C-alpha cells in the first residue's frame, strides 16, 4: 500500500482501538455495544493487515491466539449468563443514568461479547487474506 495509508494507519490505529473499547464499555449507556465495538477493534487490525501486510498484523494478534481466545471467551459468555441467572443482585446496581458502573450484567456481557466478536472478525480477515 502507498505511503499515505501507511502513515495514516500508524497514527490512527491506537485511536481506532481505543474508540472500539470505549464503545464496548459504554454499550449499556449509549448506542453501540458488543458487536459494533468488536467490529471497530477488528477493523483496526484489518487496516493494519491491509496496509502493512499480514505478518505485521500477526505480530499484534496471532491466528492461533485468536482461535483459542474466541473459544475461551465464548465459554466465559456461558459463565456470565449462568452467574446472572443465579446471582443477579450481587452484580452492579441498575438505573443510574450515565453511570458506567450500572445496569447489572450488561457491561460484562458487552465486554465478553465484544472480545468474541473482534476475535472472530480478525480470524475471518486473516483467513480470507491468506487465500
Amino acid at each position: 500500500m502507498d505511503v499515505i495509508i501507511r502513515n495514516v494507519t500508524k497514527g490512527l490505529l491506537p485511536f481506532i482501538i481505543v474508540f472500539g473499547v470505549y464503545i464496548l464499555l459504554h454499550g449499556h449507556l449509549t448506542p453501540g455495544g458488543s458487536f459494533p465495538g468488536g467490529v471497530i477493534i477488528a477493523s483496526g487490525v484489518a487496516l493494519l493487515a491491509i496496509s502493512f501486510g499480514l505478518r505485521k498484523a500477526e505480530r499484534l494478534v496471532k491466528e492461533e491466539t485468536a482461535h483459542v481466545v474466541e473459544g475461551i471467551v465464548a465459554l466465559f459468555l456461558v459463565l456470565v449468563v449462568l452467574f446472572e441467572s443465579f446471582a443477579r443482585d450481587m452484580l452492579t446496581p441498575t438505573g443510574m443514568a450515565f453511570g458506567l458502573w450500572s445496569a447489572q450484567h450488561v457491561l460484562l456481557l458487552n465486554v465478553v461479547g465484544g472480545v468474541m466478536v473482534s476475535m472472530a472478525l480478525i480470524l475471518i480477515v486473516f483467513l480470507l487474506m491468506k487465500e
Partner: protein
Amino acid sequence: MIEVYVGMVLIALTGMYCMVWKKNMIKKVIGLGIFTNSIHLLLIAIGFRTNGIPPILTQVNADYFAMQAVDPLPQALVLTSIVIQLSVTALALGIVTLAYRHLKTLDTERMNRLRG
C-alpha cells in the same frame, strides 16, 4: 415517507437482479449484500418518525418521550440482521475462494457438474 419505501423496493430489485442475472460469483455475493441492506432500510423506515428523538430515556419527561422517540426495536433487529448478514457473507466468500481453487474460474455457468 413513501419515497423511502419506493427506494427500498428499487434497491431490493437491483439486488435481486444482481443475484439472479450476474454470472460472476463475487457479484452474486455483492447482490446478496445489496438485497439485505434494502431490507435493513425498510426496517429502519418502519421505526422512523419525523422530528423524532433518539430512544434514550434521560431528563425529558416520559410523555414527551413516548410521543417523540423513534421505535428502538427495528434498530435492534437491524443490528441482529447485520450480524447474520456478516456471517453469511464471510461464509460465502470462503466458499467462493474454495470454488476458485477447484474450478479456476469465477463463472457460475461453469459450475454445473451436479444436475439432472
